[in-house]
């Protein structure tokens, strides 16, 4: 295994989705030595996925690729051994990354809720299936049910349909009245209306059902049918895939490890996107789920601010305020309804890594107690899937984060001999 040298970056950006790309480009324009890290093989994050999708995607990724920025793709940050240093692991290498200022643009993941059959093959996330299709999975002629909540469902439906899939129905758990209020308030956001109309055109003929959610997935090893609740009526529909996501949860594990203050699941930042730890900035979904436009503007603010260019950063505050209002609307509209807590049966697996069923979690009073007794959340995903589910099902708060924030190879953990013992100091903030 190779050990990479130790460059010092003025600004190191973690995450090459829209927020990270915008941050890196702006910081580089300010003359900073910039590095950008992502665990995927290309930039673009989950929304652009390396392809220059849409005008924004093409413009920003081209700016990134042509700028004098060190790109470290296929590398996953797993540890912060001391202030100003991160360790990242590649397929067969280890990088020690030194920085003066850090911008965390770690994005979000889908929220999954357990229901009977959700562990069957071909039940995937909505964004998850879209990612697989963008990564080459052929779905022409396949029947795909899309279910869950959030604007992502429609975007995924339109995309999959374009790729030749048949979409029998899109099930949105939010009520018609909430969706109507949301639509009415879109008037203040012309860009969103254009996107909405485009979607409507692409989705012509696809059945969309509000007040609807999946009750169970059925099949042998592979998914064959899904039972849905459509406005209180049960319906069984045959399909090849179920693409199912209940909006998004931010990835805040690294922020938590670094000691950044987190409230209600989101990273607290000031006007300049700086976290409670000086020199560490955060942009995009981890500060509040707001989508592409908010991520781009927050990323730019962070990129300028990390270089001390506060005037340029300040010019973007108005645009950011508008986008944040939209984010709050999303939050209200797609809040999960209580009935979804009743979806799991006693034997339904909640923790997929350790196969812990609902009935074994139910008696516990906290996430920590459940972890200690059942190993829930202690498998390789470290609770990234079952943690947000358990938070919704049982109102449990997440635990503190300890390194490594992702499973790492043993030789990576012992590799940097001088850092083998993580310092539990105030700066690294490992114990919260």
């Amino acid at each position, binding site marked *: 295994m190779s050990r990479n040298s130790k460059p010092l970056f003025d600004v190191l950006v973690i995450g090459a989705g829209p927020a990270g790309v915008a941050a890196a480009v702006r910081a580089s324009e300010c003359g900073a030595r910039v590095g950008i890290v992502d665990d995927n093989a290309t930039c673009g994050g989950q929304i652009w996925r390396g392809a220059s999708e849409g005008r924004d995607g093409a413009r920003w990724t081209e700016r990134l690729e042509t700028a004098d920025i060190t790109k470290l793709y296929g590398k996953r940050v797993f540890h912060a051994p001391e202030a100003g240093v991160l360790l990242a692991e590649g397929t067969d290498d280890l990088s020690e990354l030194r920085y003066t200022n850090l911008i965390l643009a770690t994005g979000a993941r889908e929220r999954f809720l357990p229901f009977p059959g959700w562990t069957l093959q071909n039940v995937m996330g909505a964004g998850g299936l879209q990612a697989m299709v963008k990564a080459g999975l052929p779905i022409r002629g396949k029947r795909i049910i899309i279910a869950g909540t959030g604007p992502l469902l429609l975007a995924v439906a339109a995309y999959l349909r374009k790729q030749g899939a048949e979409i029998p129905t899109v099930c949105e758990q939010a009520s018609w009245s909430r969706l109507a209020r949301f639509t009415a308030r879109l008037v203040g956001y012309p860009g969103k209306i254009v996107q909405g109309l485009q979607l409507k055109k692409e989705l012509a003929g696809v059945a969309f059902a509000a007040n609807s959610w999946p009750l169970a997935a059925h099949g042998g090893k592979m998914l064959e049918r899904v039972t849905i609740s459509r406005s209180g009526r049960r319906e069984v529909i045959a399909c090849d895939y179920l693409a199912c996501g209940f909006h998004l949860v931010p990835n805040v594990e690294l922020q938590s490890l670094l000691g950044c203050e987190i409230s209600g699941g989101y990273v607290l930042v000031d006007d300049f996107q700086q976290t409670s730890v000086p020199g560490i900035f955060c942009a995009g979904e981890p500060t509040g789920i707001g989508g592409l436009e908010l991520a781009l503007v927050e990323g730019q603010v962070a990129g300028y601010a990390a270089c001390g260019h506060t005037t340029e950063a300040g010019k973007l505050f108005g645009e950011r305020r508008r986008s944040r209002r939209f984010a709050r609307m999303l939050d209200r509209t797609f809040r999960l309804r209580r009935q979804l807590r009743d979806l799991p049966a006693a034997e339904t697996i909640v923790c997929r890594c350790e196969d812990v069923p609902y009935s074994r979690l139910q008696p516990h009073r906290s996430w920590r107690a459940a972890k200690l007794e059942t190993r829930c959340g202690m498998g390789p995903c470290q609770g990234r899937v079952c943690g947000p589910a358990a938070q919704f099902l049982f109102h449990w708060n997440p635990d503190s984060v300890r390194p490594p924030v992702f*499973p790492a190879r043993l030789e990576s953990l012992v590799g940097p001999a001088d850092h083998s013992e993580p310092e539990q100091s105030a700066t690294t903030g490992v114990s919260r």
Partner: protein
Amino acid sequence: MPDSRSGPVTLTVNGSTVAVPSGATVAVAVVMAGQACRMSVSGEARGPLCGMGICFECRASINGTPHCRSCQILCEAGMKVETDE
């Protein structure tokens, strides 16, 4: 992102040959081969869930390296992928 300009890439999943579009991830190859990625601790066959390297359901052995997140690794010609199935 699959690149339609170059031809398919051929690799093996549990010994069977699969041709995938250039730029496809290993997770795609496993699903196209009709295989599960791993067996869960209680013996369920599992396939990819999140598609973005978070859930670890897609881990497989690639060229002898175990526990690779196959959704984040691109297929290469001649690659040997082994799953638990």
